[in-house]
């Protein structure tokens, strides 16, 4: 012992959180409380945050055990809308599968799937207006898919090929699509939080009608940006919707390292005096309903809302990690809130608007569509196979106008290429 114990005081000890299950353990989620649908009914969209604290600790649900949509949160979507939602979620899943495989085939350097979390990007986007501004984290490709951004353009970005709108500058999946209300993704987590607030403040200051929505994960709520953003949003009553996709895992660190052993992520809202909702993230209708509530509130100057989607990351963090090395193998299968695609499908079947045959046919159709898109994208190249943007573009867009030192460095790089590949490179 470095220091002697003084005055017979008990020694302090440091608590380092540990997840309940590790590889080899049998996962048991019986301690997760899944309240009844409508355990807390839907409040008025202009309810005072102080009057709805319970919603930050509860779990908004719409789909009951019998697969029917019930209760005060039921958004009452018609069958066409529900089928469109299912279609987008399945397309996202098909896209993820294909691109994950493309990375394994060496066609690109990196990919991240959203398996198990599809509702949190698809159903949310469907509840927004198409010109509302989305500030995604890295696992919300469902926003682009929901807004009909071309799959080929997404793939071109993933391949950093000659068709990549971002000119091969960004890590795969870090899309940017201003025309689709999709902000440039950063690899530095939660930086988009204050940015979404700034965008919303700008919109409000211009008497615009558009709002912003921002996503982050459970782990990255620990970043200072998260707290700066919530402070600013509360101070200026900004029309912004904060979303925490609590998928339980931040690479290999469980949500306890972001504070989940003590409280919910939705409860962070309470300290800031803003509305907080905790939602079953695998219930697409509950996700839609929560977003709709928050969007209506924001759009009518009711201020910001923090929504936590309680969900589960069904796959690894990215293509760069093996979840089998840090968590129990069957966690996803045992997850008490099920799978968002299966639950929406079961609901559609329960209301007589869908069938297993239609479902299988749709999966095949979407798989073919993704394959055809991939074929088209690969005509413009895959990572590391030559078909990229011209070399000089490396130096463009650092500034609006290229300063002399970048021109000098660009010339140096071109000379290096001439040395390396000879005069025929010049002719290309």
């Amino acid at each position: 012992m470095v220091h002697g114990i003084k005055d017979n005081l008990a020694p302090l000890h440091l608590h380092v959180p540990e997840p309940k299950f590790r590889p080899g353990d049998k996962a048991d989620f019986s301690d997760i409380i899944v309240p009844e649908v409508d355990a807390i009914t839907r409040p008025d969209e202009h309810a005072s945050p102080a009057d709805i604290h319970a919603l930050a600790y509860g779990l908004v649900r719409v789909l009951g055990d019998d697969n029917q949509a019930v209760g005060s949160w039921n958004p009452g979507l018609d069958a066409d809308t529900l089928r469109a939602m299912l279609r987008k979620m399945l397309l996202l899943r098909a896209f993820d599968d294909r691109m994950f495989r493309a990375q394994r085939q060496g066609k690109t350097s990196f990919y991240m799937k959203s398996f198990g979390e599809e509702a949190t990007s698809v159903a949310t986007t469907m509840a927004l207006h198409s010109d509302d501004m989305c500030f995604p984290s890295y696992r919300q490709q469902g926003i682009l898919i929901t807004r009909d951004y071309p799959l080929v353009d997404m793939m071109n970005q993933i391949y950093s090929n000659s068709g990549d709108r971002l000119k091969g500058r960004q890590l795969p999946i870090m899309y940017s699509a201003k025309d689709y209300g999709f902000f440039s993704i950063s690899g530095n987590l939660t930086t988009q939080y204050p940015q979404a607030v700034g965008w919303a403040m700008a919109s409000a200051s211009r008497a615009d009608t558009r709002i912003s929505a921002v996503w982050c994960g459970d782990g990255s709520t620990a970043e200072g940006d998260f707290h700066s953003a919530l402070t600013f949003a509360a101070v200026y009553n900004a029309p912004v919707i904060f979303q925490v996709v609590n998928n339980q895992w931040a690479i290999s660190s469980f949500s306890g390292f972001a504070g989940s052993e003590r409280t919910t992520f939705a409860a962070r809202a309470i300290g800031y005096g803003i509305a907080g909702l905790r939602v079953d993230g695998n219930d697409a209708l509950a996700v839609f309903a929560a977003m709709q509530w928050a969007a209506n509130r924001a759009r009518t100057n009711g201020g910001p809302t923090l929504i936590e989607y309680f969900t589960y990351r069904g796959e690894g963090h990215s293509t760069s990690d093996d979840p089998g090395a840090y968590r129990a193998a069957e966690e996803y299968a045992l997850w008490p809130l099920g799978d968002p695609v299966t639950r929406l499908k079961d609901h559609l079947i329960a209301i007589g608007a869908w069938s297993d045959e239609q479902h299988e046919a749709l999966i095949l159709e979407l798989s073919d569509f993704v394959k055809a898109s991939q074929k088209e994208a690969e005509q413009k190249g895959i990572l590391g196979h030559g078909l990229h943007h011209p070399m000089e573009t490396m130096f463009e867009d650092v500034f609006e106008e290229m300063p002399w030192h970048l021109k000098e460095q660009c010339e140096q790089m071109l000379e290096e290429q001439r040395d390396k590949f000879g005069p025929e490179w010049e002719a290309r």
Partner: protein
Amino acid sequence: MTEPATKTMNMIEAINSALDVMLAKDPEVVIMGEDVGYFGGVFRATAGLQKKHGKTRVFDTPISECGIIGVGVGMAAYGLRPVPEIQFADYIYPGLDQLVSEAARMRYRSANDFICPMTVRSPFGGGIFGGQTHSQSPESLFTHVCGIKTVIPATPYDAKGLLIAAIEDNDPVVFFEPKRIYNGPFSGYYDRPVEPWSKHDGSAVPEGYYRIDLGKAAVVREGQAVTVLTYGTMVHVVKAVVAEHGIDAEIIDLRTLLPLDIETIEASVKKTGRCMVVHEATRTSGFGAELAAQVQERCFYHLEAPIERVTGFDTPYPHSLEWAYFPGPVRLARAFDKIMKD
């Protein structure tokens, strides 16, 4: 053509005038920061602007530099032209990720999809007994980041013209204001009376709009014996020392550190054959190191003596020993002796 109306202004008044002109000229310009609204800023740079232009154009913020700069990035993405103030350059570090990873890279990473026309103003430098948290000169942290322009004025006239150009620039600019010379140029002799700006040429400031292009240095004294590359407060200290010792120095006020006006620097050093770089910031990896490297790459065969660096020491800015830290007249005179010896 009539001369535009000019007025004698100190540097704070010139900065206030630049902000006023831009708020009136461009409805997208917004100003925010700690205490900048009703109160008008701890150095009074935004005095009267909220009253004149309204609370949605000029407003106070929470004490969160990460929030201020991050919100600025979002406002710029929306289409505004934010001009946040960071109360002291020493406080800018909580906002560094938003500046370095976000503002600076936005144009590049999105291939022009989103841009960040934001000007971050911040008082910097010492000489005011501000201790280590109100005296720093962190400019080289920003010149090292690709995608940010770094601007430092040395006179009221330059401050206004450069600030207007910075606000109009479509890329992020860090605009450091040498607070020791807000109210008057500084000779380096802290025990002598402060000379007011009204006695200096640079205080005749047009009341309306004008701009000084970024990336252009100013030769503030022509000379044949040695080139001095400097900026901010040190421009005036160097001028005083050169006058006192009768040195025929060519003094270049860089005004913009990045993009650097390399042509003016190269021509001068080739003419004089000697080069001294002077800044208040700490020495190691300071901007002087970059200047020395650029000069030796371009002018090595014209140099008659090693390049001299006159800087602050590699310690935190001390409170009681401020004047032993500051690169004042004694340190400069010794450096001139050394560089002129050969």
